[in-house]
């Protein structure tokens, strides 16, 4: 069915606005003298950084895949005792910012093995994996919950055992979700700064940051960012290859489907439970107990409850606005992609991922330039901050919103028109309500990621506007770990709420 012109226009405008920071990068790159650019980009150091970045991304992504898919399988397809609690707990590490996790691991290491240091490639891989795997786990749970169980039964009736069936049939059905999650996860690793800087692994993103702090070399930072974009482009092309076209609309009737068989683990129950719980517990317990240790050991005390309260409210306000705006941008683009994916629509979608792979400081600087040059009145207001968040978070919202648009049957829009609704009213009265679960998931994901965001927030927040993340930064910067602890705890707690909401909605299906 045709996509109304205004909808396409809305999608283009909204997405372009969200993509403005990318233009900055291009403008800045053009200003950078070509020989210097080439020198910076094609140097031995670059090669070293690229090698580290790519191996770290590869390692973390593989670890996340194993962890994410494995946990999703255990939660949705087995009779493991307590699998629902496991299911919820496994999503919560998403709430832990990578810098808090890295600090936490270091503190715990100092406590347990005094005299040793916790740093380097392996440490970074472990820490980043521990907070990134939910990017794969969540969509895979969603996909596994909706995979047609009839196919699994067909495989079993053809003589295949449970594990065999999972790998030869189930995983293949969940493949689009898995690749999409893997993409997000890989891009996250590429753009992560907090953990790699604390754990001292030299990646490209860290190099971008250091070129800002070493000699205030903006252009060098920008030049290096272009390499990040190239990495992401490669990933996007790779994912585009793997991603299957052809969309399946969900059945409208909602008739009770058979539930997938859930396997008993027999005598392996205990070892498997241990294996499943270990990473989840470690990912959660290490940073949380570090916070506890901080607050017990230090003498610095946080300000009043009021300070925590206002930081919390500010966080929620900023992240809520970001979630609202980002999903609002994602909706027309998702509808367009779902109904009539033209080349332009697909291009816009891919571009959305590009910005997500840039370090927050680059996005921050680009919005600074934009604000000063174009909209000085809005500079350092919530609007500019929200714009930066939109640019950073769009792919997070786009994923679930697009999935829900794909599963909202287009026939219903025609039905609405045949009942006298104009196409626009049809979207509003029928499609949007049906997309609500996906819109909610997207908004929640943006919300919880925005709460954790720091570099762009610091640069663009209205003067005097303190969020949990900036407060945490203030106190850790002043070495006041005890004062920082409640903010970190609050940050994890607040982010855990959307994480919990998302996963519990999914797990309703496998109860």
């Amino acid at each position, binding site marked *: 069915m045709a996509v109304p012109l205004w909808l396409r226009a809305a999608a283009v405008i909204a997405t372009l606005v969200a993509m403005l920071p990318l233009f900055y990068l291009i403008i800045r790159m053009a200003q950078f003298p070509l020989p210097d650019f080439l020198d910076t980009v094609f140097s031995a150091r670059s090669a070293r950084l690229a090698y580290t970045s790519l191996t770290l991304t590869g390692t973390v992504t593989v670890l996340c895949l194993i962890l994410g898919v494995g946990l999703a399988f255990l939660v949705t397809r087995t009779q493991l005792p307590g699998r629902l609690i496991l299911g919820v707990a496994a999503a919560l590490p998403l709430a832990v910012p990578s810098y808090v996790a890295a600090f936490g691991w270091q503190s715990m290491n100092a406590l347990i093995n005094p005299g*040793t*240091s916790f740093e380097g490639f392996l440490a970074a891989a472990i820490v980043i994996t521990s907070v990134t795997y939910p990017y794969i786990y969540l969509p895979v749970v969603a996909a596994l919950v909706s995979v047609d169980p009839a196919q699994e039964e067909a495989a079993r009736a053809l003589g295949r055992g449970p594990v065999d069936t999972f790998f030869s049939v189930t995983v293949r059905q969940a493949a689009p979700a898995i690749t999409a999650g893997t993409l997000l996860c890989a891009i996250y690793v590429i753009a992560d700064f907090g953990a790699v800087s604390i754990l001292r692994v030299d990646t490209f993103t860290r190099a971008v940051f250091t070129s*800002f702090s070493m000699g205030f070399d903006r252009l060098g930072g920008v030049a290096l960012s272009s390499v990040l974009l190239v990495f992401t482009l490669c990933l996007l092309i790779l994912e585009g290859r793997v991603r299957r076209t052809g969309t399946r609309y969900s059945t409208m009737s909602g008739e009770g489907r058979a539930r997938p068989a859930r396997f008993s683990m027999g005598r392996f129950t205990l070892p498997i439970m241990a294996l499943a719980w270990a990473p989840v517990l470690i990912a959660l317990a290490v940073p949380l107990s570090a916070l506890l240790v901080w607050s017990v050991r230090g003498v610095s005390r946080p300000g009043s409850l009021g300070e925590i309260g206002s930081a919390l409210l500010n966080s929620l306000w900023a992240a809520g606005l970001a979630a609202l705006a980002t999903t609002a941008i994602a909706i027309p683009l998702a509808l367009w992609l779902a109904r009539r994916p033209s080349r332009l629509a697909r291009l816009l979608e891919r571009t959305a991922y590009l910005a997500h792979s840039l370090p927050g400081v680059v996005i921050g600087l680009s919005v600074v330039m934009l604000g000063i040059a174009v909209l000085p009145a809005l500079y*350092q207001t919530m609007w500019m901050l929200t714009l930066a968040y939109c640019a950073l978070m769009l792919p997070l919202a786009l994923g679930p919103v697009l999935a829900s648009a794909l599963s909202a049957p287009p026939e219903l829009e025609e039905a609405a028109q045949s009942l006298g609704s104009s196409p626009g009213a049809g979207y509003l009265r029928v499609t949007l309500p049906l997309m609500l679960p996906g819109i909610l998931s997207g908004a929640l994901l943006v919300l919880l990621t925005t709460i954790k965001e720091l570099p762009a927030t610091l640069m663009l927040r209205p003067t*005097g506007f303190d969020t949990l993340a900036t407060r945490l930064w203030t106190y850790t910067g002043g070495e006041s770990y005890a004062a920082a602890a409640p903010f970190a705890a609050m940050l994890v707690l607040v982010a855990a709420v959307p994480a919990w909401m998302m996963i519990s909605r999914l797990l309703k299906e496998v109860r």
Partner: protein
Amino acid sequence: GDTTEPASNGDETSAEQESLVLYSGRNEELIQPLIDTFSEETGIEVDVRYGGTAEMAAQLLEEGEGSPADVFLAQDAGALGAVAEEGLFDELDAELLDQVPEAYRDAEDRWVGLSGRVRTLIYNTDTVDEADLPESVDELTGSQYTGRVGVAPTNASFQSFVTAHREIEGEEATQTFLDDLAANDPQIREGNGEIVTDVADGVIDMGLVNHYYLYGRAKELGEDPAELNVANHLFSGGDVGSLINVAGVGVLNSENPAAASLAEFMLSTDGQTYFAEETAEYPMIEGVEGPEGMPSLQELDAPDIDLNRLDDLETSVEMIVESGLVG
């Protein structure tokens, strides 16, 4: 303060002018109480943005002339130099500048130091014998220190130190020093704070930091600085290892008289005493006590260097990168 410029639209100017925007690259915990006192005393409202010194400098450079900032408070002279180079700072009042020794301010009067910090070698008193400590920073490349020294090469203080090294010892000697240091299995850290923590925890034996980290740690732990298991070691004989650097301030919008008032306040006895007490840094004006347990600014056998020349960070950074200290 007085309005130097005739008010353009009549009536409500003075109330309007009594506020200013401060970009602070220094920590809020440290700065905010001082600002609060300033506001109380002068009635001038200060909107402070806090951020990292480097990120703020980048942001200021990006904002250019359109920046809403009136004053920039920076952690180190290099950042001030970078912003000054872009021509974003206005000239400061000579009367104000005269209070500060020439060594600690910009030659072209674009910024002024507010507090001084000394590079030291912090060491763990349990694992290191005082006698084993080096006389000069260059000795750290020796084999007896292999794998024992913490360095934060991406930190601005370290970069300023390298710049000073170049000024005093020459480019070649500096490159050799950096190469040898990099070859001596240094313990690379992101910041000074981490080096101090690791020295105290016994992860590493010693590290190149600023003097006041010791005091910060004592404060956080609620202990007497002298009781800690870490101590500052000063290089002697004007060794470049004990460079004195400053945190300072520059004014971006001198049309706002409140900006000058703030700089003035920070260089007042009250302001300087605050810095000395809170951060254990060296005050810049005469008549205010320096940190307890440290030699005074005059007593310090500091290298003879013009801080104005520390703004050429670019070459230093190149050399650091070249040496491989930064990945």
